[in-house]
């Protein structure tokens, strides 16, 4: 195994593009190192991104949003007052990943690139309409977060391509987001179901909404039908029941060791309503 320590994303991309075997990028390492030790993935080239300038920074963007470096840990996100105020749903999703020790290392970009449909930080990013800045042999491009996963354990990124930063849009006024997951325990578990809701209010009515669901399909789902179910409503009982029905209808879960398909279909409807109520309150709406 070759260990590389590039000092720019372009250099990292060049190393990856030239590598022939199994290549992994190392940021927090909470997936890569575990897989390495378990013998499930043994990279031929391991490219450490932590020494590229700026990768541990959270910086405001010109548009009023945030640019999050690829080596920013969950603990760093939780300590950042501005980010927590703007995007509490994104932050709480990331904060659910692993233990306190894991939080000191794990990153949003790593959670996204691991390609799991149960990734706790991804539904919140998708609901927030977050984008990623990608560096590759052909230069830079920007993609929506929901377009990155290709299926379990896979992404759409081409050989030599890597994520350089995660970009959250401006929060703006009267907005709120929330993420909830279901696990049978209280922590140290993988989502059986996840649901994120991001919305903006006009008066007491939902003016904009994005709903993302985790662990109910091979990929994390952005569900416009679920968002439509609450648009224009004050998130009343009928809106919530339409939201639950839309989420359940969109889910395409499997039965596995973590839960049954039937359970996931039902509970995704429950969680999406609970998350919507929290987001609604965070946006300044009255409790529903």
């Amino acid at each position, binding site marked *: 195994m070759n260990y590389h320590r590039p000092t720019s994303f372009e250099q990292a991309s060049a190393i990856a593009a030239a590598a022939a075997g199994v290549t992994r990028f190392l940021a927090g390492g909470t997936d890569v190192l575990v897989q390495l030790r378990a*013998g499930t993935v043994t990279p031929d080239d391991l490219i450490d991104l932590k020494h590229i300038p700026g990768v541990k920074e959270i910086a405001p963007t010109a548009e009023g949003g945030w640019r999050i470096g690829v080596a920013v840990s969950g603990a760093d996100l939780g300590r950042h007052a501005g980010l927590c105020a703007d995007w509490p749903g994104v932050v709480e999703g990331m904060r659910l990943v692993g233990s306190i020790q894991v939080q000191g290392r794990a990153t949003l970009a790593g959670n996204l690139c691991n390609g799991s449909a149960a990734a706790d930080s991804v539904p919140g990013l998708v609901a927030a309409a977050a984008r990623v800045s990608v560096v590759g042999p052909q230069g830079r491009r920007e993609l929506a977060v929901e377009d990155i996963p290709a299926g379990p354990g896979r992404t759409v990124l081409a050989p030599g391509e890597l994520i350089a930063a995660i970009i959250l849009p401006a929060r703006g006024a009267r907005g709120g987001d929330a993420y909830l997951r*279901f696990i049978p*325990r209280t922590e140290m578990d993988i989502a059986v179901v996840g649901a994120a809701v991001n919305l903006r209010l006009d008066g007491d009515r939902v003016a904009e909404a994005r709903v993302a669901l985790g662990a109910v399909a091979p990929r994390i789902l952005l569900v416009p039908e679920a968002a439509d179910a609450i648009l224009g409503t004050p998130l009343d009982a009928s809106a919530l029941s339409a939201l639950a029905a839309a989420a359940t209808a969109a889910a395409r879960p499997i039965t596995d060791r973590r839960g049954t398909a039937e359970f996931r279909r039902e509970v995704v409807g429950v969680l999406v309503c609970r998350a919507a109520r929290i987001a609604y309150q965070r946006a300044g709406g009255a409790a529903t």
Partner: protein
Amino acid sequence: MAKDETATFRLIGTRPDRPDGLDKVTGRARYGADVQAPGMLHGAVVRSPHAHARILRIDASKALALDGVKAVVTRADLPSGLTGEDWNLQENTLAGEVALYDGHAVAAVAATSKLRAQDAARLVEVEYEILPHVTDVDEAIRPDAPAIRPGAADHSVPTGSPPNLVRQIDFGHGDLEAGFAAADLVREQTYRTEATHQGYIEPQACLGQLGADGKGEMWVCTQGQWYIRRMCAAVLGIEAAQLRVTPSEIGGGFGGKTTIFMEPLALALSRKAGGRPVKLVMSRAEVMRATGPTGSASMDVKLGMTAEGMITAAKVTFRMQGGPFVGASPVGEALSCALACYTVPAVHHLGLEVLANRPKAAAYRAPGAPMAAFAVESLLDEMCRELQLDPIEVRLKNAAHEGTKASYGPTYKRIGLVETLQATKTHPNLSLPLGPNQGRGVAAGFWFNHGGETSVSLAIGEDGTVQVSIGTPDIGGSRASLALMVAETLGIPYENVRVNVVETGALGVNEPTHGSRATFASGKAAVESARQAIAQMCRRAAAAWGIDPDAVEWRDGAAVPSGDNAGKFPPMTIAEIGAAMGSTGGPISGHHETTAGGVGASFGVHVVDVEVDPETGRTTVLRYLVVQDAGRAIHPAYVEGQYQGGAAQGIGWALNEEYVYGADGRLQNPLFLDYRMPVASDLPMIDTVIVEVPNPGHPYGVRGVGETGITPPLPALANAIAAATGLRLRSLPMSPPKVLAALRARANG
């Protein structure tokens, strides 16, 4: 704490610092994997990926060609001709003709580094012929199930029985028909429990060395160094006394470390590698796939009860699997514990042991008792609800007491179930109001406790401090409890006693720390050893004073002249006697060995309050109460720790833990990520009440407290969920998908 006040003590019942505390919090304690030796090699094990497969060929040539690989062993390197449990142990150590479960060891490799050994293990080529498999206990007992080990059944099984039925146990007493006829309510139900693992935090680990001369040493994480010695010697065909086994500090065992799994492989590899020591440390996945969880069970229970709540008759039929070996399931213990709490006029037990393609079950904290309690205590609760009777009052009415003929045969001596139930009734938790979707569950439990082969030595130091050598590894605070009992007996400070868990060369045979026996049996032998030392010290003082030894008493850590001589000489302290002993007759020690009798059973009652989320089926434990008879709590903090630990493991078993097998017979959740033991934040602080009904068979009244605590939680949780939801779950775990499915099934009529 419902303390026994009939005796007063200086130290017993106090809570001094644990003797191993500093070592453990500073990382200085040496666990199984911490031992190193010069020239050490590292081992790795090749395991079957199939649930059931004939081994056609093993080719290790590529592994052996790898630089740094020093030895490969297969079954061909072990002696043949073993029988009975020795054969079972050998077959489980390394598969012979057939791999019997996913994870069954097939070969082992030793190399100069762990990574190299793991690489080499991947290069060992094994050709398999996949055979049909069965993992579920009810499927395994079917007449058309794939036969796992034809001819393995013992004499108790009638010919023409299903192929995997290998052992049948049948006992009881009283007139069953008359008993059921006398009942106002007779109910019969079937209950199922899934296999669970002890989940000790320290994986199996050992360092073994064995020379061509048959002399060997082993450092190992175990509950019983003499069991390791005997079992390794049998599997490898060496002499027991030539193998010296030293136990490490132990990161949990719960019964799972009373037997061998990979330990003989370290020795076999060492022997083949010219006697170089070989270290073997299991990964968590290996622990889950290839050490011994408990069995799984399918159980029918029939109870008869009068309108007033008196049990008139009971009939239980338990089907259990413990993997592919006869005698590995805990079905016998389960039957004996099933109705042990009650006075039952007529009772019949039938046990059916079934083979399955799963790992060989090992002991897990009160083996069999939690499953049995789940079945019996659940049905008892159902009948109490049907008859609108208070569950504690019904248990009090039927409670076994001194003189009761136990359901499993013997007549009880002094036991404390009635006192335990009474202490439960008056606990404040029982009068706390419950909210919507909340429910309270009650259940009782029992464990025999155990005496067993025990050998202890004690020696007085030159400064009057005392060392105690015991053979029972400390898995729950026994070093502190033994130091307290010895210090109490000798009349010296707790801090002046050091209790050492010693290697096999230092004492006679000791059974492991199992059966909740260490504080009872090693404690009893240590107290007897202290009394011998006291007698010797009194003789030394008498000789110095020139008086008759009978005229000397031992008081407050010193020899004191008594009777006519009282006051004639100043007390001679243990320190003074110790300082002079070289010139007064030599070292002073005490030693006691016994197969300890006088065991006293321990009964417990648990009360749990839960809330069930009606939208997700998730159960939250709101509060939890353990009330249990300790006989006497030597170190109450450790007793409380045992009560809480038993409850915590039981809660996990009840709610989420299970072995999940795929259709291919492979274990789907061999890591803690998906084997869902409770984490700290899942549990409330567990309330405890120590009841003390002293055991007359122990000098300080000890009963043993380690195991009873895991027995009531399974039914207590089921009873609480029934109270919260009105739904009776008869299959564990009561995970959210199962609870939600039951809620939906009811809603859909």
